[in-house]
């Protein structure tokens, strides 16, 4: 463990994947770094650093945010869901199952963000149209799959009655 010089820092209390966590964080600390380096939740990934790619997407109080630009102190008092919290023990979330089943995973770097964004979408709109899914994913890039199988996987988890495009 490296030596952390303790300058000004404040205590935050948040819930991460259902578990309460109390942390001392510096004001400029990013949620992504806190998750990855201090809580060892490496599922959220760093890529573009400018809220474009979505690899760092986590849900804060159910809404997708880019953890790469979200201050940890902003998460004080909130619930954070990361990809590590999607499954219930060994029981995968239906989205996770669908991503595997439809081959929506290639390099996997976008996968966590895709899953969480889709989770938020289906919570908002259980039966989105394909176009709506594509539009909702505008903040989540994937360079491997061409999106086809990702959309298929998400649509497979939508409640019946989702419109077609």
């Amino acid at each position, binding site marked *: 463990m490296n030596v952390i010089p303790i300058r000004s820092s404040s205590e935050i209390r948040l819930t991460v994947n259902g578990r309460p966590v109390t942390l001392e964080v510096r004001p400029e600390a990013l949620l992504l770094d806190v998750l990855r380096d201090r809580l060892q939740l*490496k599922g959220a990934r760093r890529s573009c650093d400018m809220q474009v790619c979505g690899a760092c997407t986590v849900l804060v109080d159910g809404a997708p945010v880019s953890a790469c630009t979200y201050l940890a102190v902003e998460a004080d008092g909130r619930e954070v869901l990361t990809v590590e919290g999607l499954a219930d023990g060994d029981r995968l979330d239906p989205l996770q199952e669908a991503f595997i089943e439809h081959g929506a995973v290639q390099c996997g770097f976008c996968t966590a963000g895709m899953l969480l964004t889709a989770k938020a979408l289906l919570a908002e709109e259980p039966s989105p149209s394909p176009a709506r899914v594509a539009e909702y994913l505008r903040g989540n890039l994937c*360079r491997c799959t061409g999106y086809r199988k990702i959309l298929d996987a998400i649509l497979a988890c939508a409640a019946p009655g989702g419109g077609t495009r």
Partner: protein
Amino acid sequence: MSARTGFRVVGQSVRRTDALEKVTGRARYLSDLELPGMAHARLLRSPHAHARIVRVDVARARALPGVHAVLAASDLTFCDPAYGPALRDRPLLASEVVRYEGEPVVAVAADDEATAVEALDLVEVDYEELPAVTTLEDALAPGAPLVHTAEPLAGHFSDLSTLRAKPGTNICHQFDYGRGDVEAALAAAHLVLEETYTFPRIQHYSMEPHGAVARWDDEGGLTVWASTQNPFSVRAELAAMFALPASRIRIAVPLLGGGFGGKTYAKLEPIAAALARVARRPVRLLASVEDAFRTVRRCSARVTLRLGFLRDGRLDALACRADFDVGAYADIAPRVIQKGTYTATGPYRVSHVQLHSNAVYTNTTPGGAFRGFGVPQIVWGVESMMDIAAGRLERDPVDLRRQNLLAHGEEFAPGDTPVDGKLEESLGRLAEAIRWSDTVPPGRARGIAAMMKASVAPSVSEAIVRLHADGSANVLVSTVEMGQGARTVMAQIAAEVLALPLARVRIVPPDTSITPYDQTSSSSRSTTMVGRAVQEAAEDVVGQLRKIAAGKLGVAAGRLRVEDGAVVSGRTRLPYPDLLDHHFGMRGGELIGRGVVAPGRTAAPLGGSTPFWEVAMGGAEIALDEETGAISVEAYASVSDVGRCINPQQCAAQDEGAVMQGLGHTLLEEMVYEGGQLLNGDLVGYRVPRAGDLPPRLQTRFVENGDGAGPFGAKGVGEGGLIPVSPAVANALARLTGVRLRELPLTPERVWRALRERRQRDATDRTTGGPGDV
């Protein structure tokens, strides 16, 4: 077992072996690696495209608490700082001169990234700007400023050791190939077309940027965990730079978050290794996406083609002159230009061929390998011109292409591998998939394109298969899993040959100190080459099993077969664990199988015969917003001849991804330079395809005749699907609007301007009666 194929695991869309770890967030990539005592590195990059370094002062940075190493070029006395796979033209850190905006000048390793950034702020560098060349035109102009003034050393590829630079120019390599008599044939041709096409600089944007973690040990050895597609090349570079035997270097490769060619050959590894040496602790160097834009890109190109057709439609002659902009350092671009240019004739039978291409230095991000490896740049022009020719010859574009296709078994070029696919079948499947014969809906048009690409040759892949006492197996191969699913495919191949369930086979991750040689995870070669090595190694094990069983049963080994984890003879089943117990006289020993696939050098023009031909064809149906010039691809069909799909879902995934990446450079992507400065070196400025860009109908189809050179008649896939996209879309646009664009990407602005010009010209034509160029 599949009734259709007779295979049990091969041909099935089994779940990826890494799917679960990826959907649960527990997959580990380079940036997840933490080593005790590890320092974090940052680079100071040049703000200038071309400048002399007058002064570098790192004293204040070095004095900053928490800083473990600060390196400038003058500190690199402990290694040979020159590297590069084709030409050793690149310094580990810029020395005396910077040659592109973003070139690393100073490297720092500190307790954490914040301290490293702070240290870089304390570094002072004075530059004296030099005139820069950032376009092919500037670089090739007589008396142009030279990006490199000294002659660079050859890299580690023996087949590139005779690179032909043109002294006193910015041309670092030229490629020439010819057969027949092009000029005579063109002179005699019924139709001669001459056109020039340009292809932009494209950023790979694998979502995971480059990274490396380096650690020296006290046995004098170096370990580098690297996000690389070819660890053995990285090993060769580091061995030369640090004067180490290969056996003392360990390049270990975790899962890659995408590659696309951008992670071939040494990138950050030399800097990380040098920093770790000085810092005396592990050093992690992670690039940002902005760094990636300044690390490598696709070579842009300007390609002038002359095609000569006979009256009956036969393509009789093709001349190609291509200039590739390879940026400030050659990287693997010399090979890119020769391989890309070599297949300029595509899947067609052409008697008279003259190819010439130049690799041209400019003061921009170095150009290297990128999915397609020089072929898209050429095919963009050739396949556009096939459609122009069809128009001029009043032939159907599908029909004209069909007429000119090479036959199965026909030599592509004297000495090279005969065509291993059935090209007509691909074309037929494509026409069917894109409904070529159906009426086009109003406001839409369709276009197609075809391509044929060689894989790298000569090339070597090796494998070791270990069958354990309990009848489960480990496979040692150096295939890099970068998303393409290679590990899953290798497990399927081993499981098939060994007659084991997939779950009993596990692939060991690449590590040059452990897993046997494999040249590179690129060039669509892994299924064919590594797959064959795995097959051979597994068959070696099966041979040993049969021999043991034969001895035990007293029957000829040839009469025995393996089935469901046992050697079977009639009704007798000898499970592997029992055979191993018998063989070793105890429970414990293992059988080791070895597979070496090394076709060697041949008389083929490039020095080796391609192990297979990658064949792909594509068809687009587009609509156009004439107000904005925005093209929307409403349907796209991709057909690849893969011999056999080892994993059909993964084959489809490869081609879907390839098509979308192709749509990126067709419609959206281009790295834009102005005055030597990269204007859009981040994801805000550089737009890659999003989910909303997905064509509503995207189909991938596969030709499977079991005639591939790989295991079970499979062959490579992955690059091909990307290549026809641009000409297919442009051909559709021409058919829709009569407008022919010769510059990518087909941005709304370009299309809109072309439409406007076309309208203006049409207006003029209506007055003058002259013909419009299609």
